């Protein structure tokens, strides 16, 4: 391998890793706040790419119908739960969040499609259509079992992933899509041609990570999410509602997965079931960060991207095997590290 090829693979790996990093950060965010390892996260990223492709082709995406069905179900469940708790005074707020806002988003997308909107508007529409899916799934599926074990939540999460993959096939068909690049700009860096799309991916990953950092460190809502992640009982005693913190975490996480889907769509062909591998590779990155550290998850995800890039050069057929084999030494290292800290606590 020459240094030129290594540089190309390195840049390609960083770009892929940056996409994984966005999903990995979202995975950590949702896990720390809700204890759910949200496997369908990659599906959310893939669905965004497919939704954008449908909008590009002037087709109303099936994700719009999904949001309508989920909004109706979530509203019904919320009304029943408020009735049981005798808290009907909260009904207007519930209707606004679970019914009016999601339906308004779908309605706006449906109406905007009539006027053949420019690319920027289509990007926003794709993100808006995707963002409510995970919070609505949280209300319908996870909140009733929020006190269950992590294993139960994980099992349900896996089942949900398979359900979404099935729906993806129904909505988007078996063909893959590749959307237009967001920019045709390219430049030479250290003797290697770098596309504008690659630069955009890295900039977007840095920008969203930076915004997330500012959100967590400088806003009360961000701090309340961190508090819920650190100590659930303590946060409840401060009046922080875990369910609301969970909804915010799902919203933010979905937005990040959606952005990563939009960024990856012009680079890789995305199929209805591509999300699983995106999510799983981001998950490997998140495990590097111990499922709790955002910088750790981001670094881990970029590492996965670079490893994948070099592995695909050496042996394209074995690239996934090589990436997932990375889990074994990481898990051994993490288990040794956690044993060490338990010993320290006992001391």
């Amino acid at each position, binding site marked *: 391998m020459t240094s030129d090829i290594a540089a190309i693979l390195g840049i390609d790996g960083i770009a892929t890793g940056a996409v994984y990093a966005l999903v990995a950060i979202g995975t950590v965010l949702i896990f720390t706040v809700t204890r759910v390892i949200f496997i369908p996260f990659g599906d959310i990223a893939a669905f965004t790419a497919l939704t954008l492709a449908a909008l590009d082709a002037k087709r109303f995406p099936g994700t719009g119908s999904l949001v309508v069905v989920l909004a109706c179900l979530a509203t019904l469940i919320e009304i029943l739960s408020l009735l049981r*708790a*005798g808290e009907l005074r909260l009904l207007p707020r519930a209707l606004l969040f679970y019914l009016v806002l999601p339906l308004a988003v779908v309605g706006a997308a449906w109406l905007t499609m009539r006027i053949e909107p420019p690319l920027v508007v289509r990007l926003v529409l794709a993100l808006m259509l995707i963002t409510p899916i995970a919070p609505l799934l949280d209300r319908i599926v996870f909140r009733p079992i929020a006190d269950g074990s992590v294993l139960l939540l994980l099992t349900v999460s896996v089942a949900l992933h398979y359900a979404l993959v099935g729906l993806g096939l129904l909505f988007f068909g078996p063909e893959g899509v590749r959307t237009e690049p967001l920019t045709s700009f390219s430049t030479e860096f250290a003797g290697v041609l770098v596309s504008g799309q690659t630069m955009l991916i890295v900039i977007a990953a840095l920008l969203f990570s930076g915004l997330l950092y500012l959100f967590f460190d400088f806003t*009360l809502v961000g*701090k*309340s999410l*961190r*508090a819920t992640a*650190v*100590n659930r*009982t*303590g*946060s*409840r*005693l*401060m*009046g*922080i*509602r875990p369910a609301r913190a969970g909804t915010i975490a799902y919203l933010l996480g979905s937005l990040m997965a959606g952005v990563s889907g939009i960024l990856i769509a012009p680079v890789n062909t995305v199929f209805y079931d591509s999300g699983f591998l995106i999510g799983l590779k981001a998950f490997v990155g998140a495990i590097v960060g111990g499922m709790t550290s955002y910088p750790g998850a981001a670094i881990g995800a970029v590492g996965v991207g670079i490893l994948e890039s070099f592995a695909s050069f050496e042996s394209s057929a074995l690239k996934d095997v090589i990436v997932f084999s990375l889990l074994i030494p990481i898990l051994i290292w993490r288990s040794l590290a956690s044993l060490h800290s338990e010993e320290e606590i006992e001391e």
Partner: protein
Amino acid sequence: MTSMFSMTDVTVCYDNVEAVRNVSLSVEEGQIVTVIGPNGAGKTTLLMAAIGLLAARGRMVFQGNDIGKISVEDRVERRLCLVPEKRELFSDMSVADNLLLGSYSLRDRSGVQKTLEEVYDRFPRLKERQRQAAGTLSGGERQMLALGRALMAKPKLLMLDEPSLGLAPLIVREIFRTIASLRDLGVSILLVEQNARAALETADYGYVLETGEVVQSGPAKDLIHDPRLITAYLGGH
């Protein structure tokens, strides 16, 4: 004086075991009430039920409203606050962030900075360590932070679970001085404590809880001279 908080015939069960049985107590406005008793008497369980972390049978009234069915978060919004035995601090977050989160339930945020300054005046050590992670504080400082964080919510009733647990005698005295001084802020206090002498010296009224039931109650100044309590809890002969 009017009743700030009352429990009537409250029973709390773990599975089928009654940890607290038909307990009735009342805290008047501006009063410090203590619940003393041996380990395992159900004191912590009682406070957990009062804040809503444990389900309970019976009636609980706070400022004239039945709060038995409402969530923990709604109770906190009504300014009923608990400083739990384990403190439940946000160990990875700074002292300042812990205090700020104490004010999370306040809708009117205009006075938060002023309350923060008041907490720092009351606990200067916390101001010195405001940028330090809560997990790195000493036991006494953690208790101060837990108290300060609860005060940030401007509580009407503050429930304290074993505030002296695991602290050095000097720090215990400081903590109880602080608790007594909270009376001046108009905060009513329900204090659960194993250190019966310190609790009764600070409180206006006391209840004795044994195996989940109230076995004795009365003004704290009377209980502190009660021969049975002196023998059982106050280290006398």
